[in-house]
């Protein structure tokens, strides 16, 4: 009987355009489209940022130390044009109206400080809300400073290496896979959770509130099928829809990585391919299936209680934030899977996936997370059953 209910509800659901959009089309297309736009935009920005001619304002005449040094920097390091000002007031005004992009102000004793080998005071002014300006100022100043430093070593007849007592290197022993897992591994379960929730939403409302609103539930309840069988048959469709939506979003992400060349770094690409193994996907699904059951178990009592599609939608939509918010906790670096976090639903799934990608997942925590999610899923199914059994809920 459950299979008969499931089959009919699945056919009905697959013919609903709204469900198809949220279950298949949007999850598949969202990543290829957004990532493609993002990659193209950032590439075109980078191109235009290096081509952009920076107008650099300097107080004083053309014959001065910093102007000479800047003019010597080759154009390959970025196009530039020097503009000379009589005073700082006119320089700042030009900075504010963007007729110059960088402004240099030196101290009164600049030449003397240079000559007497004291640190010479230089201030670069720029608008930090415009990306790339600070970077250009730092690039130019590093070149000028390195050259000045070498000149001082020569003048003082000192070996530069003797000035620095240590030659320190900070070496990261974590593998790239671990780094990716710990820092960016949270995104995968986050995507799955967000789309899994949205994928469950419309079928849950349509199959429970919708059936009540359309007046079809009464007939179904007069057939020799028990209520728990009806509930389970419908619930399986809701769970499947959530899983399909989440899988489609991952498929979309995979298509973006494989065919849209959004990851140019070959090492990173190799790690991503390593991560997306069969065992990884199987473990991920073992955590996400109870989570999707839990989502369905949360939505169904609301859908059963609500009298109209709109009412159900207005309660379930904000719930999305409540469910997805814990998933964001997993993004914070430093939060690890332990006995405490393994007991927090949603958070445990995100953290377990991060550890799984990083290759540092401990079996005891995986089992604890899995048990917590199973317990929660079972509770939510029980609550759904209680709600669906109430006479006052099932008929308007």
């Amino acid at each position, binding site marked *: *009987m459950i299979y*008969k*209910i499931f089959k*009919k509800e699945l*056919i*009905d659901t697959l*013919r*609903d355009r709204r469900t198809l959009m949220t279950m298949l089309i949007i999850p598949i297309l969202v990543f290829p489209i957004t990532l493609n736009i993002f990659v193209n935009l950032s590439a075109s920005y980078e191109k235009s940022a290096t081509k952009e001619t920076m107008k650099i304002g300097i107080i004083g005449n053309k014959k001065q130390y910093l102007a000479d040094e800047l003019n010597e920097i080759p154009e390959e390091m970025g196009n530039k044009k020097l503009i000379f000002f009589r005073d700082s007031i006119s320089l700042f005004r030009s900075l504010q109206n963007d007729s110059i992009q960088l402004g240099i102000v030196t101290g009164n004793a600049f030449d003397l400080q240079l000559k007497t080998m004291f640190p010479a005071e230089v201030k670069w002014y720029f608008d930090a809300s415009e990306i790339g300006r600070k970077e250009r100022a730092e690039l130019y100043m590093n070149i000028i400073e390195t050259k000045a430093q070498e000149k001082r070593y020569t003048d003082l007849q000192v070996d530069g290496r003797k000035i620095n007592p240590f030659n320190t290197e900070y070496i990261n022993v974590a593998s790239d896979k671990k780094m990716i897992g710990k820092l960016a591994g949270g995104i995968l379960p986050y995507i799955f959770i967000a789309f899994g929730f949205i994928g469950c939403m419309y079928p849950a409302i349509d199959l429970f509130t919708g059936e009540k609103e*359309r*007046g*079809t539930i*009464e*007939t*179904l*309840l*007069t*057939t*020799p*099928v*028990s209520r728990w069988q009806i509930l389970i048959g419908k619930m399986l469709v809701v769970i499947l829809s959530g899983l399909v939506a989440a899988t489609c979003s991952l498929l979309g992400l995979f298509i973006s990585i494989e065919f849209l060349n959004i990851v140019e770094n070959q090492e990173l690409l190799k790690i991503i391919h390593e991560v997306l193994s069969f065992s990884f996907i199987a473990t991920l699904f073992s955590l996400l299936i109870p989570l999707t059951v839990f989502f369905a178990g949360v939505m169904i009592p609301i859908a059963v209680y609500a009298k109209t599609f709109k009412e159900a939608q207005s309660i379930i939509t904000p719930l999305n934030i409540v469910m997805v918010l814990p998933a964001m906790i997993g993004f914070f670096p430093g939060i690890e899977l332990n006995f405490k976090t393994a007991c927090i639903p949603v958070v445990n799934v995100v953290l377990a996936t991060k550890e799984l990608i990083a290759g540092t997942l401990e079996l005891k925590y995986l089992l604890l997370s899995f048990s917590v999610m199973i317990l929660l899923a079972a509770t939510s199914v029980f609550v759904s059953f209680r709600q669906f059994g109430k*006479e*006052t809920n099932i*008929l308007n």
Partner: protein
Amino acid sequence: MIQVTNLSKEFTLTRKQRKELNTEESIANAVDNISFNCKPGSVFSLLGPNGAGKTTTLRMLATIYTPTSGSIEIAGIDAIKYPQEARKKIGFLTGSTGLYARLTPIEIIDYFASLYNVPNQQREERKKYLFELLNMNDFLNKRIGKLSTGMKQKVSICRTMIHDPEVVIFDEPTSGLDVITAENIIKLIRDCKEQQKTVIFSSHIMSEVDLLCDDLAIIHQGKIKHQGSMSDFRKEMIESNLTAEFIRIVQS
């Protein structure tokens, strides 16, 4: 055969419902200790104004609601103890019944036949018989959402009768239908009677009751105000017409 004895149904009122009904009572007696008997081969009518308790009574007979007290026997089965067994014997049709708009008539009929566990051969025979009887063959593969009200009503009838039920329950079946579409229902009720099925239907239209029923019960505020055969009702009436007599009984 339907045997109803001392049947009652209470609903707990929410605060909102108490406000709407302007009452301090936390319990509403939708049906209050009613008893009646419907025989095979005859049509029993449950007549009453809106909110009288007709739908609640029929929903209890169809095992959608569980009674607070009393007993229901459907074709010899205790419907409270064995609701699933009782449902196998029941066909249920209401005026407000909806159909799955994204499915076709044939899919709906097959779905319900499978829920009633109708064997394949019997299913095909019943489908053929009902499709021809109701003249449905032209729109069997069209989606319900694209059908007219009359066509949908035919699908509902077919869905109700696919498992050849012994007992047929109609809850205001002609409500909201035009006279031509309502005629399909009238014909169905007559056919059921001819086939020796037990038929109970609720209505608030006296002319419809006069046309079809053999026995009737007038229900008001959950209580039965009058019960007997239609012929006795006609003989004993004080007012000049059936509707006026119905109003007199309800208001007495």
